């Protein structure tokens, strides 16, 4: 049967099985026909085979037949034969090599269409050996005056070069007058060939730079030539060729001042004169913009390009918006300010229904966040995170965090916030970073441990969460049982209940060995905070020896690394640990006190992404509270100046955190946070500060004059320092307070201001 009869038959099949049966039957018939070496039906049979192959059925037994067809002297046979070869054959079959001779003959055939078939096949699937054998023929055809063949030879040459790069040199002479061609098809493929050569070899690139004037001329002619019906597409003369040339110009102009200058004018011309009502015009404009941004163009041209992209963003056509966002993403690093001008449009794209556009707008938004726009951007990005599809959430939350931390490395006391929905995307290695975050948020310890404890009561399956919770309980368990929480109703829980929970983790099937390590360590730490020491000792002796000791050690060491102290906790039965010099001996209970916060922030900045996960974890705990989110983020991220410890003596610690006052950048707004780790309150607390003559200082009222004991709260106070001469900030502080009935006074110099606070 003829091909169309077969197709008709197959289409009547109502099920996949029926279709398969028909095809098998037909294949059997075709096979026997092949065996009979029947020339008449070979062509038709191969055509049928190709059809069946497209539907997904095996057709390899037709490969040899394709070769026979290629060798035939009927054009139809050759056509189907070559098509079959392209669809069914590939380099890995030996049969493939048998084609070489056929192709060679056909490349020299008297009929151009046969030569065309040969070039096409060679250019699509020629192996390296074939290309090596036949490169000479291709090179010959590259020089022919027959434009039909010339254009095909050019693309075939590209394939040859890709397969056998060493042969590239061979085609160089033939490229000499490729650009003088009038035929657009040849011009087009020639530009493709030149592009390929330039991309592969820096030598070729330098060599072809001399073509820039010629390319500029061709482009100019296309733009200025007026209406040419032959090449016209929607009123523009051969837009495809224009785009190709622009791309080659881009490669030639990149990192070369002279070439870039030579094309400056034409680029400006194309950018301003191209008709943009149809897609073809926009394609040209788009390519022009990409070229402008990639070469060494003058700044005026760059701004023009970015403004075009900005206009694209407002285009109704989604495709245009998409490519605009893609391009802006590429240029946002180098031309940040110019792209910033289009920020509000970009942010609007976050609300687009199209997933591809949303994703790009999101990535671009991250790149645009800076100290000045942080409030607005944060709001938009949080709305976006809240409402975006699950496929986005991890990337979005991650990006939001990365954007902010990389730009503004500053941690401040935690307030309420939420990454609730992204919570399940947290990674295991985020635990130490989260612990660090919690540690630094001194006033939140009681609240944090309470929330984490409650979370444990609900669910002990999420290992990272459980680990962090265990650690917190180990560290702040005393705050938990004494009901210190101010932010919410403190829960009533006894030491035994806490130990029950921790022991529960030890025995649970859900707990990994690492988790068990954390909970055991927590129990051990509580021996210094709780009074039920005997119970603890019993637990430790039971579990400490049965749990994998190495894991235990590792888990503990990991925790300790966070605090930058090398301490080996005493393991039951193990050797006594060496004393850690940096642990203040006057405070045996809090291992993580007394550390300067500064170096840690660098670590955390490096951790970056992991820290995000930490925040995600906390999302399990904290509630969405509209205003607080923004407040927190404003505090958290608004300046990029790391906090510092200004004073730390006798249990009184004063941290400084910084803000830049907008709009006056000469004013540093410093908030002091005074905390008291001793067991008695510090009352009548007064903080005073003096600065050198070139500065001016304003002290606002403090939040209170009692610094509560045991780090249960801080006193905050705002200082505004005017520093018009941008001199290095120095401060002398005077502290007075009453502690345990006695009056204390201390004077101290503060010299360790971070440079960003006064520069």
């Amino acid at each position, binding site marked *: 049967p003829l091909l169309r009869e077969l197709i008709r038959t197959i289409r009547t099949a109502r099920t996949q099985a029926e279709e398969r049966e028909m095809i098998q039957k037909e294949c059997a018939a075709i096979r026997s026909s092949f065996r009979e070496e029947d020339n008449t039906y070979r062509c038709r049979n191969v055509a049928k085979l190709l059809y069946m192959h497209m539907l997904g059925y095996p057709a390899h037994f037709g490969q040899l037949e394709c070769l026979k067809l290629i060798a035939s002297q*009927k054009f139809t046979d050759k056509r189907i034969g070559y098509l079959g070869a392209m669809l069914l054959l590939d380099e890995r079959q030996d049969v493939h090599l048998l084609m070489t001779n056929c192709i060679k003959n056909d490349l020299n055939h008297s*009929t151009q269409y046969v030569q065309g078939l040969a070039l096409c096949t060679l250019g699509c699937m020629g192996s390296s050996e074939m290309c090596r054998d036949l490169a000479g023929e291709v090179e010959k055809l590259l020089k022919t005056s027959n434009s039909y063949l010339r254009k095909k030879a050019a693309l*075939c040459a590209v394939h040859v070069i890709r397969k056998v790069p060493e042969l590239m040199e061979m085609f160089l002479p033939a490229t000499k007058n490729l650009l003088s061609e009038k035929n657009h098809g040849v011009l087009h493929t020639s530009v493709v060939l030149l592009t390929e050569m330039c991309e592969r070899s820096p030598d070729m690139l330098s060599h072809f730079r001399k073509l820039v004037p010629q390319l500029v001329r061709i482009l100019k002619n296309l733009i200025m030539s007026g209406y040419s019906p032959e090449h016209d597409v929607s009123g523009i003369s051969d837009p495809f060729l224009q785009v190709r040339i622009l791309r080659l110009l881009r490669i030639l102009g990149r990192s070369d001042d002279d070439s870039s200058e030579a094309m400056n004018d034409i680029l400006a011309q194309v950018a301003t004169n191209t008709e943009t009502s149809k897609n073809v015009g926009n394609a040209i404009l788009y390519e022009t913009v990409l070229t402008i941004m990639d070469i060494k163009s003058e700044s005026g041209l760059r701004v023009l390009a970015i403004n075009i992209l900005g206009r694209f963003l407002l285009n109704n056509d989604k495709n*245009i918006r998409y490519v605009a966002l893609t391009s802006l993403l590429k240029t946002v690093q180098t031309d940040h300010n110019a792209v910033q001008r289009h920020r509000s449009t970009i942010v609007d794209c976050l609300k687009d229904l199209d997933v*591809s556009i949303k994703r790009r707008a999101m990535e671009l938004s991250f790149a645009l966040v800076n100290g000045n726009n942080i409030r607005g951007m944060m709001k938009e990005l949080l709305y976006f995170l809240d409402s975006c599809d699950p496929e986005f959430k991890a990337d979005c939350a991650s990006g939001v965090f990365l954007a902010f931390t990389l730009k503004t490395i500053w941690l401040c006391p935690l307030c309420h916030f939420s990454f609730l929905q992204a919570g399940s995307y947290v990674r295991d290695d985020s635990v130490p970073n989260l612990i660090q975050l919690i540690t630094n948020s001194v006033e939140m310890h009681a609240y944090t441990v309470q929330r984490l404890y409650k979370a444990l009561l609900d669910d002990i399956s999420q290992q990272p969460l459980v680990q962090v919770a265990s650690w917190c309980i180990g560290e702040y368990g005393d705050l938990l049982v004494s009901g210190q929480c101010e932010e919410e109703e403190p829960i009533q829980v006894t030491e035994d209940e806490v130990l029950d929970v921790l022991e529960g983790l030890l025995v649970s099937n859900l707990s990994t060995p690492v988790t068990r390590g954390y909970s055991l360590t927590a129990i051990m730490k509580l021996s210094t905070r709780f009074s039920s020491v005997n119970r603890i000792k019993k637990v430790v002796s039971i579990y400490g020896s049965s749990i994998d000791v190495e894991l235990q050690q590792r888990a503990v060491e990991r925790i300790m690394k966070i605090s930058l102290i090398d301490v080996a906790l005493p393991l039951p039965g193990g050797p006594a640990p060496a004393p850690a010099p940096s642990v203040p001996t006057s405070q045996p209970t809090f291992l993580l006190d007394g550390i300067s916060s500064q170096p840690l922030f660098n670590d955390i900045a490096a951790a970056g992404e992991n820290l995000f996960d930490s925040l995600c974890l906390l999302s399990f705990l904290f509630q969405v509270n509209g205003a607080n989110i923004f407040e927190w983020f404003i505090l958290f991220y608004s300046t990029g100046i790391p906090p510092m410890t200004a004073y730390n003596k006798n249990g009184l610690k004063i941290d400084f955190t910084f803000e830049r006052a907008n709009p006056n950048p000469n004013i540093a707004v410093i908030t002091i946070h005074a905390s008291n780790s001793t067991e008695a309150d510090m009352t009548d607390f007064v903080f005073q500060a003096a600065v050198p003559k070139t500065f001016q200082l304003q002290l606002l009222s403090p939040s209170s004059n009692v610094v509560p004991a045991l780090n249960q709260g801080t006193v905050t106070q705002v200082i505004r320092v005017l520093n018009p001469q941008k001199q290095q900030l120095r401060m002398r502080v005077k502290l007075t307070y009453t502690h345990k009935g006695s009056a204390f006074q201390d004077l101290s110099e503060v010299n360790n201001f971070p440079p960003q606070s006064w520069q």
Partner: protein
Amino acid sequence: MIRAILIFNNHGKPRLSKFYEHYTEDTEQQIIRETFHLVSKRDENVCNFLEGGMLIGGSDYKLIYRHYATLYFVFCVDSSESELGILDLIQVFVETLDKCFENVCELDLIFHVDKVHNILAEMVMGGMVLETNMNEIIMQVDAQNKMENTFLWELFIGIKPEIGSNFK
């Protein structure tokens, strides 16, 4: 570079499959299925660009598609191709088909898939754009169609080549 050109209908039935890179037959079918899956999910008023699926190659690849009546035309390309340019190319392809088949519809593609291949071969070669001028393409396709069922040595006055001697 264009990695693949696929035409399939609204139910995912392939009407043309051309790969410019080698994949096994199974992989080819998988790619077709996956592409259909990705593209058929798309709304009518979203952009015509999609990040490519897992099989056809990762972050450098995009699917650029157009939906005409019952057919999807999908070009799978890498970053060296202009997205907007490819969209225009698809348009040229479809308009050419329309001219060649006179108001082309799915049935034409079904019954004349080899002809569609021939047309495509005059537009894209080795994954690269060969010719974009519709009239030029049609002229060349017509000339070749006229040569159907002719013996080539009839066209050439001179030495008759030996039939069947090109390989054993």
